């Protein structure tokens, strides 16, 4: 891990129009990704956590321009030169695809049911204009690396289990040896007993192939396990960004605290230790004014709903989007205690 940036995301935004009526008039926007800025360093694993609807999947898709971003820059520091993905030409995009790949969440829907494993894995190679024979040879070379025997090459996805499919999906991402891989919830659709296999595989591959990961998940324990740094998203915005230690132990944002407290502890002797965050995630169509978290935050003050806080550097690369990040004492039992409910 180094401090050399491999990807710089600057003020990235994606608004989806909400259209109503006969003439598809745009009545509002869903701010799926709202002014997101962060940097990924070479060789690290950056975890991205948040609840559903927080925009983490849209962010991942924007990074690869599978969804066209509306604003901002995504600078990829490639092997030869740096280039802005948002404004890249078609030819440049092909180069981006060679350097940056994605692993999808659902191994059942992300493989074309009518393609054999060889064809699925070879797809990025074929797109890079590499001959079929050469592509097939490289696929056979790569399959053992992801833990699949050569006999899998001729199988169809429906003949594979979830874990095997996810290995195929990983092989497809790695076939062009990209330095940067975006993993969009790669284990959340898998069986418990298979999850740790895939996590182990991702860890191994990272050290073997010098990969950089952007690892998206809603499961905090897994993100904590695999990431060097973690970014927390809420309603399209980054609310906290820092090293795993900073985010898990020295968190400065009330939402981070709430998220950590909501995670269930897999230990029956430690029941009722967590605290429950009240309320629902507000609709991203009309997010609360000011700080988006102000409606659920136990510390919210007048200023919070009036003025939108900026993502501020607290030192040591620890960024927090909260007006009162310095003052709040988050160690106290701030949220509604469990006893009040049951």
């Amino acid at each position, binding site marked *: 891990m180094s401090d050399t940036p491999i990807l710089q995301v600057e003020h990235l935004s994606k608004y989806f129009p909400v259209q109503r009526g006969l003439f598809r008039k745009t009545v509002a926007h869903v701010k799926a990704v709202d002014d997101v800025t962060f940097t990924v360093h070479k060789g690290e694993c950056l975890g991205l956590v948040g609840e559903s609807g927080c925009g983490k999947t849209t962010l991942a*898709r924007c990074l*690869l321009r*599978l969804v066209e971003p509306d604003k901002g820059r995504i600078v990829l520091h490639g092997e030869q030169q740096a280039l802005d993905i948002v404004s890249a030409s078609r030819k440049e*995009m*092909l180069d981006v*695809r*060679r350097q940056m*790949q*994605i692993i*999808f*969440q*659902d191994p059942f*829907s*992300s*493989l*074309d*049911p*009518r*393609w054999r494993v060889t064809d699925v894995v070879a*797809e*990025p190679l*074929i*797109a*890079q204009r590499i001959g079929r024979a050469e592509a097939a040879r490289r696929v056979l070379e790569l399959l*053992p*690396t*992801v*833990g*699949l*025997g050569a*006999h*899998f090459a001729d199988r*169809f996805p*429906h*003949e*594979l*289990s979830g*874990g*095997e499919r996810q290995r195929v*999906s990983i092989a*497809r991402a790695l076939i062009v040896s990209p330095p940067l891989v975006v993993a969009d919830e790669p284990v959340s659709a898998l069986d418990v007993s298979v999850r740790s*296999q895939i996590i*182990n*595989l991702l860890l*191994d591959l990272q050290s*073997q192939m010098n990969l950089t990961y952007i690892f998206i998940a809603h499961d905090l324990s897994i993100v904590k396990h695999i990431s060097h740094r973690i970014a927390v998203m809420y309603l399209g915005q980054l609310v906290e960004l820092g090293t795993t230690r900073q985010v898990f132990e020295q968190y400065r944002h009330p939402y981070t605290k709430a998220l950590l407290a909501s995670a269930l502890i897999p230990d029956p002797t430690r029941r009722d230790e967590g605290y429950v965050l009240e309320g629902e995630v507000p609709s991203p169509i009309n997010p609360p004014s000011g700080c988006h978290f102000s409606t659920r935050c136990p510390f919210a003050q007048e200023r919070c709903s009036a003025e939108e806080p900026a993502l501020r550097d607290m030192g040591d690369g620890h960024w927090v989007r909260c007006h009162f990040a310095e003052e709040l004492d988050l160690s106290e039992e701030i949220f509604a205690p469990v006893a009040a409910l049951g």
Partner: protein
Amino acid sequence: MSAITDIGRPTSDVASTQPVVSRGRILAARIMANRLGIVGIAWLALTVSVALFADFFAPYGVDHVHEGALRAPPQRVHFFREGSWRPSRPFVYGYKSERDPRTFLTTYTEDPDQVYPIYFFVQREPYRLWGLIPSRLHFFGVEEGGMIALFGTGRLGRDVLSRVLVATRISLSVPIIGMLISVILGSAIGVASGYWGGVADILIQRLTEVMMSFPRIPLWMALAATLPADLSSLHRYLGVTIVLALIGWAGLCRQIRGKTLALKESDFVMAGRAAGSSTPTILFRHLIPNCFSHIVVVATLSVPGLILAEGALSFLGIGITPPLVSWGTLLKDAQSVQVLTKHPWLLAPGVLMVLTVLAVNFLGDALRDALDPYSQIR
């Protein structure tokens, strides 16, 4: 690194226990479970093979005229000679005609003196199979000089059975070729419209809506009427096929567009784009193959409409014209009420049309049920 080899260990021992039932087998089993579907398939297989070898199955050529047997009723096949209990080679009797002195109508009865035994694989009238292979072989026939008309004869004394069999060729090929053209048009336009969206999509969708809101028969008639009258019979055949296809694609296009819209957002298409695949690859290798089962069902269910349309146009005289024969042109002979009461055998092509339409519908329903992911048979 030992951990790596452990993780990298192929999971083959477990994978080999994954399900072994192929999609094809499941599909076949689901179709076989549908009785009506089987009936449909059997009937269509029969009709198609008859159509392919119509000249062989037909005892006579389309224009062979039986002198003195105009609108003669179907002959019965007999197995026993008169007064004998020993079965003999199947045979038919010739006709004895009588003219009603008041109505001038001729009535035909069996003439026990004329016995024509039926022989199989006989050398009779010459023909060219598929226009290429010269042959004289017919499936069955009677001795030269005799006559056999199992479906009776028509207005000019031509054998109805032979004409119906030969007509099968046109009556099946027009809808099938028309369907293929409309499938190619409809799925190409539908996939493109769904994938790109935007202005093109809106224009295409409005066009299909306009096409679909015209009443069909008048539109067909209008288009068929634009075919020049002096067109040769063969060109006319092609023209009719294209007219039918031009109207049929709209419905398919809409369905395929809907399917594309759904598939376009699917993860594997997203993954294809992330892999860097070009748009043609996405369209032709991801989208269309995954729409295929849908296309097959919609296409199959569109065939009955085309069969009926060809029949209707030809019946009205603006479809297929002589010397080509289709079920529709044959039904022209059955236009009067008199036919129903006195010469019902002239309706044979109509009966065949009904049976074939039913069969295709059965097949289509069976396919739809078989391809339904929520089907109970797994």
